[in-house]
């Protein structure tokens, strides 16, 4: 009897995190690449340069019943930057700016989430770029979730925030004021695990 109780209790305890994990853990769909990490920065105040990081991976936990437990982790291969101009990419990746040779990966690890209701909230987390870790806030929106046509379950988000490049030790002193910060835009779909 005692033995049975112990086994039952152990099973119950062991299965709790498991079922929770199943409800909330998603892998960002980089395989089917329904995921984008992009930036937008002024060019002299006359137009914008758009670029994206093509290789990254990540996962997140999202449970509508327990939004406080929301978390996101993303790891970006900095050298996969593409701004549609090879020589500019090379220059951005050089030690004048991102120094991808020295700092090949950028990471984001969330530390908190504040829900505003209506499928919106603000994600807080540590963004590491150019070797500098800075706490940022990013307003995010649930774009949609549901079953996909291939037997999986997906949830997708978008979010954007302004980054001041000097915070990350990137010197934009040679460029006009409006080029000192950029907009980071992220959107991805996660496949529930």
């Amino acid at each position, binding site marked *: 009897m005692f033995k049975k109780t112990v086994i039952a209790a152990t099973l119950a305890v062991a299965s709790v995190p498991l079922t929770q994990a199943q409800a909330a853990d998603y892998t960002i769909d980089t395989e089917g690449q329904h995921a984008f990490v992009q930036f937008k920065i002024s060019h002299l105040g006359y137009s914008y340069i758009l670029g994206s990081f093509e290789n990254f991976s990540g996962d997140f936990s999202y449970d509508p019943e327990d939004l406080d437990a929301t978390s996101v982790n993303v790891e970006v291969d900095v*050298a*996969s930057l*593409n701004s*549609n*101009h*090879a*020589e500019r*990419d*090379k220059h951005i*990746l*050089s030690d004048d700016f991102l120094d*991808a*040779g020295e700092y090949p990966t950028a990471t984001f690890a969330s530390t908190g989430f504040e829900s505003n209701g209506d499928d919106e909230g603000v994600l807080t987390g540590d963004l590491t770029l150019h070797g500098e870790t800075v706490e940022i806030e990013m307003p995010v929106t649930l774009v949609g979730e549901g079953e996909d046509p291939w037997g999986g379950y997906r949830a997708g988000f978008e979010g954007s925030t302004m980054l001041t490049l000097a915070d990350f030790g990137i010197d934009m002193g*040679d*460029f006009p004021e409006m080029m000192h910060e950029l907009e980071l835009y992220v959107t991805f779909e996660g496949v529930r695990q």
Partner: protein
Amino acid sequence: MWRNTRSGWGLVSIALHWLSALAIVGLFALGWWMTDLGYYDEWYNLAPWWHRSVGVLLLVATLLRVIWRLMLPAPVARGPRLERIAAHIGHIGLYVLMLVALVSGYLISTADGRGIDVFGWFQAPAFISDLPNQATLAGTIHWYSALALIILAGGHTLAALKHHLVDRNDVLLRMIDPTRSRRG
């Protein structure tokens, strides 16, 4: 006169040698200078345009130069055996470094599949693009090969001067005077 013989270099090889030498020294200085220009410098876009345009022409000229060199005999080497071997290896090194510097430069500019505008005359097509991190890797190779080329060419120049001033043989003169290729 035009062709190389056992006794001297023809006009084609002489012209290619000196134009290439001039272009290489110029490209090196230009490349060094232009990569330090500020964004607001008037030359920020123009200097790389010159560098790429001259570079592509030199790449074509160098490919023809190598073909021309392989098709014809070359003047007999002078000096003791060890010097001749060193000269031979050095010359192969110069050709290899020229080609590596030229091709790596080409691969920087064509990394996203775009061709290179040459003086507004024509577009050099992009044959190889979208390799992982192509522009940055090609750029690193470009810098080190260009540096090695300039250093080796410096040694090569000293050797040429030694032939002329110390050994007092015709090695330098036959790279200047194409009529020497006609003597038997």
